[in-house]
């Protein structure tokens, strides 16, 4: 390779590496802000902001969904399989909202430690399969249980 | 599955068909526009050359 070309190639490599390092440092310092939601463990540990809106993500605990009033109010528990947080929400839930499903709620904590949500978004997983396959998987899992 | 059922997309017809429609239009435009522009350029250059030769 001619020296001029080698020089250009080295210059380009340095530029890309430099840009990469700059981006890595920038992302590291903004790491917290890039998190879209807090986990239920964060909330239990008091890491989430008080008196301010934030997003809480977790799995809807099976059997925890209840409608205490006769309105649209829903109460359910969210978990990250270590800590649970109770959530209250009044409004229309997305199609994918169901027990055992991941969701992200936007709202704030009230005095009782209950998360009052203004918005609930469903977070779907990366698994895709036909309903029959899901049914047979479920049956197989139940057979395994004693 | 009937044709009607197929187009209904289980109630998600609006979202599914809009997505496919937009995708199709954008992809088609990406092929057709450069071809039209190239034909136009060729015509323009041919005209210029003819004038030059006169």
């Amino acid at each position: 390779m001619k020296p001029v070309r080698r020089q250009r190639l080295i210059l380009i490599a340095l530029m890309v590496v430099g840009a990469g390092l700059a981006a890595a440092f920038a992302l590291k310092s903004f790491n917290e802000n890039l998190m879209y939601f807090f986990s239920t463990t964060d909330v239990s540990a008091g890491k989430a902001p008080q008196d301010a809106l934030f997003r809480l993500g977790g799995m809807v605990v099976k059997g925890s969904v209840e409608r205490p009033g006769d309105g649209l109010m829903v109460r359910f528990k969210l978990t990250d399989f270590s800590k649970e947080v109770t959530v209250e929400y009044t409004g229309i839930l997305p199609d994918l909202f169901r027990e055992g499903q991941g969701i992200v709620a936007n709202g704030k904590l009230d005095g009782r430690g209950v998360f009052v949500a203004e918005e609930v978004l469903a977070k779907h997983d990366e698994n895709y399969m036909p309903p029959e396959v899901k049914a047979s998987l479920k049956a197989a899992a139940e057979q395994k249980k004693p | 599955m009937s044709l009607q059922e197929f187009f209904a997309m289980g109630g998600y017809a609006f979202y599914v068909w809009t997505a496919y429609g937009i995708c199709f239009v954008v992809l088609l435009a990406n092929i057709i526009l450069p071809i039209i522009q190239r034909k136009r350029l060729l015509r323009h250059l041919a005209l210029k050359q003819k004038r030059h030769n006169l």
Partner: protein
Amino acid sequence: MFLIPDPVGRFFHRMASPPHFYALTEKLMPWLVGIFLILLACGLYGGLYLAPPDYQQGDSYRIIYIHVPSAWMSLFIYIVMAVTGAIGLVWRIKLAEIVAISSASVGASFTFIALVTGSLWGKPMWGTWWVWDARLTSELVLLFLYLGVIGLYNAIDDKRTASKAVAILALVGVVNIPIIHYSVEWWSTLHQGPTVTKMDKPSIHVTMLVPLLLMAVAFKFYYVIAMLQRARLELLQRERTANWVKKLLTEPTP
């Protein structure tokens, strides 16, 4: 790179000569379009008709067949653009510069499609058109990078200078590519994790996976077709005064 055998070097040199490239792409085009259309037809038939609905998302998940291949292409084309841009910078090969800039508009289109179809999928499933999470935001940055490349190229009149400027911008923007790919693992996002490229077995049923892969290959062919069409235009514009173009014009309609 240092010891290229002579015949190989000559082959690439001939390939990279503008008149040869122009003639060759014209001959290749019907084949590329034919293969693309067959793959597209199979992919769409498999994805929209044969594949069963999803156990959770019903039929709305069928947007995956354009959303995911488009998102893959948006990353793939960016890498092609950056690499050919770098080749143009180092070796000053005209054809590399042309492939780089011709890729930009196709890449921008795929990024746009990925964002719009994602939005149309997010509304019924997540409950929102848009969120500012790491995945969606970094993909939007990619669209702006593509638009920046196109805008910069058009703003500079001397196209050789423009190509150099554009290549540098594209190379700096490469840092965004791993960010997009790993955003769903590094940060908590509303967007779900990867399905097909997961290290263990893909978590998508085979009847749904096959059309997805067909569409992905079809989009690759589409990219080659659209990029070559742009490149032919770009080449003519740059070489308008060259002898081979003059000869082309005197021939009966091309």
